[in-house]
């Protein structure tokens, strides 16, 4: 499988979840693991461009596919990705634990709806839990990210 454009050897343990493979085997700890049953959204990554829960896939299932994690959005030292920039500007994060999952979800959401309505934003982030912000600033960040993406 390719992760952020880099080819990696096949996972050796067939029982390994993609989330654990990314973190423990590849050292990509930006993908966070919260609930491990698909409820919290922290582990969201892109699989062939579409957001999925990495805790609800076995790593071997990603063989032959392209995975994108939060680490792949912007190189170290490079300008932030539009969604990251928007979260930064709008205070869309506090503790940051849920943020990688939110950002990857929003990247997928904006591919589906480049100009999302408030209702689409609400529905689009309903599968991600944040215990700090109360979501208002995250919703603002999604709309801001849509603006930034079109500039």
């Amino acid at each position, binding site marked *: 499988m390719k992760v952020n454009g880099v080819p990696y050897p096949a996972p050796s343990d067939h029982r390994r979840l993609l989330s654990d493979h990314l973190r423990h085997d590849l050292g990509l700890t930006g993908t966070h693991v919260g609930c491990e049953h698909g409820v919290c*959204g922290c582990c969201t990554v892109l699989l062939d461009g*579409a957001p*999925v829960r990495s805790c*609800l*896939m076995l790593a071997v299932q990603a063989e032959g596919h392209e995975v994108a994690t939060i680490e792949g959005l912007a190189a170290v030292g490079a300008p932030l990705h539009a969604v990251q920039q928007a979260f930064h500007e709008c205070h869309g994060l506090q503790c940051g634990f849920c943020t990688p999952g939110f950002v990857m979800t929003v990247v997928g959401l904006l591919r*589906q709806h480049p100009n999302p309505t408030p209702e689409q934003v609400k*529905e689009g982030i*309903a599968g991600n839990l944040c215990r700090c912000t109360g979501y208002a600033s995250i919703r603002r960040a999604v709309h801001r990210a849509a603006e930034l993406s079109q500039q």
Partner: protein
Amino acid sequence: MLGSLEDAKVLAGGQSLIPLLNFRLARPAHLVDINRIPSLDRIYERDGGVGVQALARQAAVEDSDVVARVCPLLAEAMRLVAHRVIRNRGTVCGSLAHADPASEIPAVLLALGGHVTVRSARGERVVPVGDLFRGVFETTLARDELLTEAWFPAVPGAYAITEESRRHGDFAIAGVVRAGDRLALFGVAGTPVLADPKQPTQGLHPSADLEASPEFRLHLVKALTQRVFAA
């Protein structure tokens, strides 16, 4: 292969099975991953309805032009199935085989009077929806059978699906599907059930849980039925 393995589970979208594995609630000896079977993900018009194959993702059904044209009820139901991120992996046929009593898709198939096609080394057979669901998380499929396709007939006239849940994407406390004059309920019995639109709660004995009492579920069935038949 399913027939030759003791204690095997089919892995399609995995959005229900993998949480069960993560919690060790299910511990099958073998997983048979069907995701690499080519051309098993078609969504196509046939026999006055829509055929949805085993690997068609819920998100693809949600976005499908064929579904929007022939069976818009199915497209509308998709938006109530968990969240888009889950629907990117989850499959329609997987939801049917999983047979969660609170799931929308089995109730839609029931309201429309569709069927599923199942295949094993012994051959292929068609199972009408009325013969598919046996109990909570239980279908009449044999352990060597794979649900390869679901067929949803075109919607006969007015249609609607609505449900009550704590938040969008949560499991439904109770839900109703209208397809023409037919009414199916979900979340209020061990399987989805057909009901009389004039007396939707007749014969129902929903269970209590942390979300709702039986009385509240019965109230929801009445209120939601009124709503879908008022339109």
